[in-house]
């Protein structure tokens, strides 16, 4: 009897905890799963994967990048660069924000200066050369640069330079971005469920006629790799980002799923701490590099789907030096170099985050270094600690990856190889005055051929000096279902979601 009552109580509880009613699925909603989360809708506030993909769907940029990598008009229908390269004049097209208000030159100036000047701006580097931005008239923007700067127009395509509504941001403040921001891109936020998913709906005022070619999308955050694959196979997704390499062959072989393995600007490498022993000694760094069979590492890590890295820059950026022979695998040479070096046998710390991939990579490095007598111990920490210790230069080696948000190598060099550009060569403290100087010269050089030669020199110097040990260039391991057509990820980490059609309901 009491049991019966207990049963009834449980039943009642079940009825009471009916979850909130969620959106019903329309037929042409594109469902994409990724491990990376949307944590803010404000384009100025983050440069973390997850947010980068989201910004591109919400905020239109002045310039777009065509599939072949060339620049084409975006919110700016045309632009002109003055002969001295110091003034860029952009004509803003007749376009509207998602609330129906016109996008004006004032909004453009506001958005760009916000990214450059806001104290909390996560990544102001793409606009560092901007000296002054002003509106000529309602539809004309005049940007004055500190000096001629070859990558500047291309940088107006970077993920955080999207145009936001001046009026809305000034009226609502921080709240403008917490739930339903006024957008200028192909989508508006239908519902944001933090820690779960972002539901997008087509922006009815989007300037590109006939786009987006779908009603909306769900960016679903699924942290577990296996779960994304299972969902993909079960047909619960149209696209999954980051399929584990071990499962690529299986997915490729399945009906209705394709894996085009699009090129990315991602580079896997290991950071070396140049500010303390043992890797402050060039000979130890060279020995460490020669000890690693990068071809075998590439194969072991990615089942051969990636290309072996040969220079310190990502393989897909412009001016990547394909002819650079790389550091080469030579155990005897490595042993000799280590013997000549100041290395005293103390184990170096390989600092990694807690993921199966980094652990595998760290074990491979450790084993190959052991062969030449370079001792290393692996220290596993979570992302929070890793990001405290690496900027603090409290590590010896740290295998990880980075990518470049645009094909132009300028930002890549500033991030990973320049000692005086803020990040001190990705916190390795690698500092070569010649490389720093070349970085500035190359950015100001408007002739592509001469620029190419300068970046070649940067790669030669930094690879020979082992600024980092380049390992491999992976493509994107994204899986796509045949319910949709036209979706891919660009090298700049942006989904071509607006081009995506739902072909099979």
């Amino acid at each position: 009897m009491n049991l019966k009552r207990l049963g009834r109580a449980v039943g009642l509880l079940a009825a009471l905890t009916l979850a909130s009613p969620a959106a019903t699925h329309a037929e042409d909603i594109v469902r994409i799963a990724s491990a990376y989360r949307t944590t803010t809708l404000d384009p100025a506030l983050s440069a973390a994967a997850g947010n980068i993909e989201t910004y591109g769907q919400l905020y239109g940029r002045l310039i777009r990048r065509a599939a072949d990598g060339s620049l084409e008009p975006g919110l700016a229908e045309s632009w002109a660069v003055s002969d001295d390269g110091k003034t860029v004049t952009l004509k803003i097209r007749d376009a509207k924000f998602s609330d129906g208000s016109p996008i004006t030159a004032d909004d453009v100036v506001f958005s760009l200066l916000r990214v450059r000047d806001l104290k909390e701006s996560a990544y102001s580097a793409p606009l560092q050369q901007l000296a002054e931005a002003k509106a000529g008239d309602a539809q004309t923007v005049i940007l004055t640069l500190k000096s001629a700067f070859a990558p500047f127009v291309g940088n107006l395509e970077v993920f955080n330079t999207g145009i936001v509504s001046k009026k809305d941001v000034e009226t609502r403040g921080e709240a403008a971005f917490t739930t339903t921001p006024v957008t200028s891109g192909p989508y508006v936020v239908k519902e944001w469920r933090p820690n779960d998913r972002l539901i997008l709906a087509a922006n009815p005022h989007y300037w590109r006629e006939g786009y987006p070619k779908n009603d909306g999308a769900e960016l679903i955050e699924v942290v577990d790799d296996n779960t994304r694959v299972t969902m993909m196979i079960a047909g619960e997704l149209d696209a999954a980002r980051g399929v584990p390499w071990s499962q690529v062959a299986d997915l490729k072989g399945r009906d209705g799923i394709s894996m085009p393995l699009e090129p990315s600007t991602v580079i896997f490498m290991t950071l070396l701490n140049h500010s303390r022993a043992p890797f402050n000694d060039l000979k130890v760094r060279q020995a460490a590099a020669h000890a690693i069979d990068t071809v075998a590492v590439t194969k072991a890590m990615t089942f051969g789907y990636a290309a072996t890295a040969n220079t310190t820059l990502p393989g897909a950026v412009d001016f990547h030096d394909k002819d650079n022979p790389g550091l080469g695998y030579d155990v005897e040479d490595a042993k000799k170099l280590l013997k000549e070096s100041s290395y005293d046998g103390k184990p170096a710390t390989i600092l990694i985050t807690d993921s199966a991939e980094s652990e595998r990579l760290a074990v491979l490095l450790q084993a190959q270094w052991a062969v030449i007598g370079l001792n290393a111990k692996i220290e596993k920490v979570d992302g929070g600690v890793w990001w405290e210790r690496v900027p603090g230069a409290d590590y010896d080696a740290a295998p990880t990856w980075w990518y470049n948000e645009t094909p132009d190598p300028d930002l890549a060099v500033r991030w990973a190889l320049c000692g005086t550009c803020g990040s001190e060569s990705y916190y390795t403290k690698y500092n070569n005055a010649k490389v720093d100087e070349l970085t500035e010269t190359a950015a100001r050089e408007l002739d592509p051929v001469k620029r190419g030669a300068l970046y070649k020199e940067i790669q030669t110097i930094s690879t020979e000096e082992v600024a980092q040990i380049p390992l491999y260039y992976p493509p994107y391991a994204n899986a796509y279902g045949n319910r949709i057509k036209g979706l891919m990820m660009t090298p700049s980490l942006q989904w071509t979601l607006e081009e995506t059609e739902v072909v099979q309901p």
Partner: protein
Amino acid sequence: MSRIPAIGLRLVQLLPVLIGITIVTFLLVKLSPGDPVRLMLGDRATEETVAAVRAQLGFDLPLWKQYLSYAGNLLQGDLGQSIRYRLPVLDLILGVMPRTLFLATYVLVLSIPATVILSVVAARHAGKPVDQIIRILSVIGMTIPVFWLGIMLARFLGVELGLFPVSGYGDGFIDHLHHLFLPALSTSVWLVPMLVRNLRASILEQMEADYVVASRAKGLPARYIFGRHILPNSLLPTLNLLGVMIAFLIGGSVIVEIVYAVPGLGGLMIEAVLARDYTVIQGLTLFYALGTVIVTLSVDLISTWIDPRVQL
């Protein structure tokens, strides 16, 4: 007999516990390494930007000042704002709570009848093959890792047979039941054996008790003795175990949540810890503490109802 004063006393006793919890979690998260601001801004932010945002959030103040302002807000019912999402912590928690409660309830609905039936069958046939089989299955159920079972069930029942969705929680009551079946089943496979072992043992113990022997001697029907005396008296220890398990389910269903992509309280906690989202960690801990107290209080109340000799 009124239980109100006893319940009131319990709630008053809760106060110092909660204050203690706020202090401990505050110190734990603040003193552990890792910086939420760096994680929030992403790789490319400069050290100056990180410092500016830290100052804006008040992280550069002395710890005691930070705690006082946190506690002050708490007194006004304000759990604060998530550092990462810049949204109220309470909204984040309430946003995912229905799923977790639904899943926990679902697990109970599946587990309780299964536990009672299996335990009764096992106890009544103690030592016989049926009992042996149930015991072997229990050991298997308890030792299979939940994440592995989850993946296998999803691949087999979800992908190969197409019977159940492998992710999400659906829209509407029936859809929730459909979507959450595999997560609930995976959890039950682990929970039921634990409860069965406990309940079977206490039924066996009660079957040998003097009053049962006396009832039999009096000539009462076996079915009556079992339903009226043995079972109710055996339930109490299992009920207490169940209480602990429910509290655990509410906070600890992380693995199942991750495998089946049903973001609930557990997933929120893990993410908050990884992102060092202090305010969310503190808010959730308070929630768990409250939840645990409510569950144990309910178990105690049900216990007094089943067995009036039990005092609160």
